[in-house]
């Protein structure tokens, strides 16, 4: 438990610095920050003294209706600490800094988030669609994406736009 207390202290210190908010859910601390602070937050989390969260476990997008979130799951190979960092990304202008400079492993994950949510990662070496073909229209995991076949989708679209 000592580890957890220490982590809590570090996360709260960091939250004060990057004007983020801390929550706890199922024993994991969630640090929510605004997109421009993401590099600073993750660099600091990577080098927390005694409880470094230095392993990027996962990265994925999340559509919350009025905004997107990029969810980073951090852990460590040398300790039990877990941290979830969430970056709030604007829906109209979904741009966030790429973390490939901190972890090379973010490469495919950021491409996937771009493919599925259309979130643009600034500074990514090769930001292209990874699963879908290049001229695919739309971003499937957004909540407003219509999953019907393309012909039906066009009919739906003309109806909505016509009204």
């Amino acid at each position, binding site marked *: 438990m000592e580890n957890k207390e220490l982590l809590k202290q570090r996360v709260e210190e960091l939250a004060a610095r990057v004007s983020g908010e801390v929550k706890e*859910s*199922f024993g*994991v601390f969630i640090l929510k920050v605004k997109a421009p602070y993401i590099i600073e937050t993750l660099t600091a989390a990577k080098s927390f003294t005694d409880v470094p969260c*230095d*392993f*990027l*476990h*996962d990265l*994925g997008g*999340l*559509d919350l209706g009025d905004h997107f979130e990029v*969810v980073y*799951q951090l852990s460590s*190979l040398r300790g*039990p600490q877990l941290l*979830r960092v969430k970056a709030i990304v604007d829906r109209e202008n979904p741009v966030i800094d790429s973390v490939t400079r901190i*972890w*090379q*492993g*973010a*490469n*495919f*994950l950021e491409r*996937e988030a771009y493919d*599925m949510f259309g979130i643009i990662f600034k500074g990514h070496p090769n930001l292209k669609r*990874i*699963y*879908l*073909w290049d001229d695919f229209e739309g971003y*499937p*995991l957004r909540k407003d994406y219509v*999953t019907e076949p393309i012909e039906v989708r066009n009919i739906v679209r003309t109806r909505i736009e016509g009204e």
Partner: protein
Amino acid sequence: MAIENTQELILNMGPQHPSTHGLFRMIVHLEGETVTKIIPKIGYLHRGMEKLAESRTYSQFIPYTDRLDYLASPHNNWAYVQTVEKLMGVEVPERAEYLRVIFGELARIASHHIMIASTALDFGGSTPWFYLFRDRERILDMFEMTSGSRLTVNIMRIGGMCAEPPAEFWPALQSFLDDSPEMLEEYYGIFFGNEIAQARLKNIGILPKELAENLSITGPILRASGVNYDVRKAEPYSIYNRFDFKVPVRTGCDSFDRTMIRMDEIMESLKIIRQAVRDIPEGPIMAKIPKVIKPPVGEVYHRVENPKGELGFYIVSDGTTKPSRVRIRSGSFINLQMLPIVAVGWKIQDLIAIFATMDAVLGEVDK
């Protein structure tokens, strides 16, 4: 001897290629026979699992998880149902936990069988393939007895198991365990004791420890690079803290150690199964859960140690019967990132060996 006026050759491997273990395509730039650049192309098996999950109820999504890493489907079920159980706060009965461990570890062995067999096949050794498939068959038979299917088993439910194993399951498992030391000796002799295997794998495709960590590599590949990390030990889920087993670690960082570590893991898995069979209690195999599964509003991330790497599920619930978001963190997908980095500078036949020892399953890569 210097050759002048050489030209770079671009070779397109896959998607239909026996060494790509599914539908994987790589565009390989070659200088003679030496690889200078690899561009991996994935998505040929993309089914949009994460999107499908949003229009299915929590229970309806379990069979879809079978199709992630289809060589170890009980593990995928396990990761998913445990995530939902964590979200709902369901306590799973003891017997179900033991059965989950038995089936999970059997699936791990079956998955490693495929890995060793196909690695041998990829550089021309077809005999190990038959030896390992002969033994894998017995595991699949045990799956069939219990769930009715062999590959995509759909064996777990939210709150427990789909069925009690039939009476003939236990003797079959016992005879498999009894024969296993002999089997392992055979694999060792025919594959690892083989001079060609040693020549083709040793010191090929070095993945240093620091690079592996930076690339978010997990699973046996990480442990073959000298990192002692296994979720079963680091963050024991289910009942793994009750078993006595070791985490095999090797420091060679090469293709040979990535193959050998699978052998070591088979041995440890057998040890866990023996203990589980010894200790398994009587009792129910399903918890009392409501007919309509409606987890409370919240989010949870849970990961398990899959044979190919860590499999994580991040589920966001909005309080309805369908998940609002299911994010799948699949081991093979992230592990695939090492290929364009590690295989550069090696000959084309080494590229095949490196890809084989990564043991990527395209069902999990493409989701």
